[in-house]
Every structure is written in C-alpha cells, then in structure tokens.
C-alpha cells in the first residue's frame, strides 16, 4: 500500500522521477472517470427522472417586485401585473415541460406570440424572458440584467404590463423550476389596468404551478455533482504537482516533462472559472 502511495504521489526512480498521478496515462484516467461520472448522471436522469434536480425559492411575487425595482432604478414606471399575461407565461413553461424543450420556439413550431394569442392577449408589442435552474431570484435577475437582450426587455419603456409563470416540473429527466416573463402592451392602451388586491392574490396563488409528474422532495443538483467531482480532481492534481515540484528541486532530478508552474497556473485558473460559473441559465 505504501509502495503504491509512493508510486502515485511521490517522484522517484520507479515512476521516472515524476508522480504517476500527473503523468499522461493517469490524466487520461481522470478524463475517463469524469466521463463515466457524467454518463452515470445522464443515465440516472433517464432511468429515474426526478431523482436529480435544482431546488428553487423563486416566487412570481419576488420576480414581479424585483423587475419593477430594476425599472424604477432606470427611471421607468413600474409594469402592471396582468393575469392574462401570467396565464400565457405559465402555459409557455408547462409547454416546455410537456414537450421537453428549452427555447423561445417549441419543436412543434409554436412561437412565444402563439401563447400570448392563445391566452387572449392582444398586444401591440410583446417580449419574453426565460430562466431555469436558478435557486434564488437575485441571481436570476442579475443574470437577466447582465444580458443586453434580456435587460432590454426588463427596462423597455414601451412595455406597460407583465405576466410571470414560475412552474416546477421535470425537464430532460431533471427536476427544475422554469421562470417565464411575458411583457406586453395591449393593442388598446385603454385596457391597461393598475394592480388590484384580487390580481395580487392571483399572483401569489399561481406562483408555483406543478407538472403532473412532479413530486416535491429534496433534490441533488447534477451541476453540483459535476462541479464537485471536477474540482476534487483539479485539487488532487494541483497538490501532487506542487509536491512533485518541491521534491524534484530538493533531489535535483533532471527529467523530460512539462512545466509544473505552467500546469499549476492553468489548473488554478480553470478551477477559478469553474467556481465562478453562475447558477442556472437564461434564454
């Protein structure tokens, strides 16, 4: 066992003065193990849909409040909440779960505007923002505000109304929460109404609709599994590179190998990028 440990982590004559863990065959083994892990995650989501997923504390009320906060910060009037637009947004989210897609246009060729029309909203101008896999509203709003096209919808001074669909379900075998914002200005501007207490309660009641197959339970995030496995591999390799570099200098060994300093720097940067990859995705 001690010999194996030495062979893997300590440079000496039996491993050609380079720790085996950082030699090319072992890096290839790390790649194979990671791909195996990814295949396991994918298989699990197909065989047992709903085992993996993203938990979320997002509510339609929070999305509505924060959208208007962003508008107020930009010196724009708040958007009025519209029940019909919310039905349209929720229908879009349910359609994405039902047909297993993540896009503005469905595989059946339905555009966002079809949902506006189906809900009975006649618009002169309209827009759609989508988000999925976010845990909190702040992160999701920040992602939208950092994207020029999504930000343009949120702070568009031509929109007067908004509807929000926050729907839980299973997409590609993974539990998630889809958030759909539908913006619009009615064809007849006289139809624009201010919020009433009834509309507010509708917003709260329909903030989370559920797909028929969705059962609420603690979820394991597939992204978190991938990140943790990847980060563990990087940390092991970086640690061994540092030990290897130290012992090589101490023992004054000469060998043909890549730059340990370069590898450490490269892996540290990739590890940093891995940790700074935000949650969720927008469309």
């Amino acid at each position, binding site marked *: 066992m001690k010999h194996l440990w030495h062979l893997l982590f300590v440079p000496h004559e039996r491993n050609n003065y380079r720790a085996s863990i950082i030699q090319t065959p072992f890096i290839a083994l790390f790649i194979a193990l990671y791909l195996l892990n990814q295949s396991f995650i994918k298989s699990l989501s197909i065989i047992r849909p709903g085992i993996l997923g993203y938990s979320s504390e997002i509510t339609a009320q929070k999305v509505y409040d924060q959208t208007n906060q962003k508008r107020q910060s930009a010196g724009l009037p708040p958007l009025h909440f519209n029940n019909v637009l919310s039905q349209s947004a929720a229908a879009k989210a349910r359609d994405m779960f039902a047909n297993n897609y993540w896009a503005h246009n469905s595989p059946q060729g339905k555009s966002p505007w079809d949902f506006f029309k189906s809900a009975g909203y006649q618009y002169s101008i309209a827009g759609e923002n989508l988000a999925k896999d976010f845990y909190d509203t702040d992160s999701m709003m920040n992602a939208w505000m950092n994207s020029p096209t999504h930000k343009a919808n949120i702070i568009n001074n031509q929109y007067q109304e908004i509807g929000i669909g926050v729907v839980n379900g299973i997409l590609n075998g993974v539990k998630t929460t889809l958030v759909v914002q539908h913006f619009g200005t009615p064809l007849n501007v006289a139809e624009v109404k201010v919020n009433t207490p009834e509309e507010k309660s509708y917003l709260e009641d329909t903030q989370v609709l559920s797909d028929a197959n969705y059962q609420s339970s603690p979820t394991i995030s597939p992204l978190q599994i991938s990140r943790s496995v990847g980060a563990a591999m990087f940390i092991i390799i970086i640690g061994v590179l*540092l030990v290897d*570099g130290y012992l090589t200098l101490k023992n004054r060994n000469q060998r043909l190998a890549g730059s340990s300093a370069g590898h450490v720097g490269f892996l540290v940067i990739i590890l940093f*990028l891995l940790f700074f990859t935000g949650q969720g995705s927008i469309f």
Partner: protein
Amino acid sequence: MSLFKEIEQKPLEYLILLFIFIGAVIAYLTFGFDRQEQRWVIYATCGAYFLWMLYHHHHRGDLHLSIIIEYLAFILLAIIITASTLL
C-alpha cells in the same frame, strides 16, 4: 521551490502566461451572462496555453511529442470538466 525556480529562469515567458490567465478571468467574468461566450473563453484560454507551451518548450529545446501529449491531456481534462458545467 521548483515552481518559483522555473519562473525565475524564464520570467518573460511566465509573464506572458500570467497575462493569458488574467485575460481569461476578465473575459470570463465579462461574459458571465452568456454560456456560449464563456465556453469560447475556455477554448481560447486552452488554445493560448497550448501555443505558450510550443513557444516555451521550443525555447527550452525540449519540445518532444511526449510533452505535447502531456499538455493536450491537461487541456482536454480542463475542457471536458468546464464544458459539462456550462450547460
């Protein structure tokens, strides 16, 4: 430590590498909203690291196939792990 000794011997080469890494972080954070752009930043960083390797080892006179394969293995590992987290 060997890493610092390596850097001391070729400071300009490692300064170039440092600029590559700083540029990668800035670009990655700038395109924080767009997964596709973030993917391109990672590919560009890996490409730049590979080019740096060619220059560095050619300059050192030890640009052998085994070294090129070693770098490619590290780069492939980085691409596979980061790409799978940028869904």
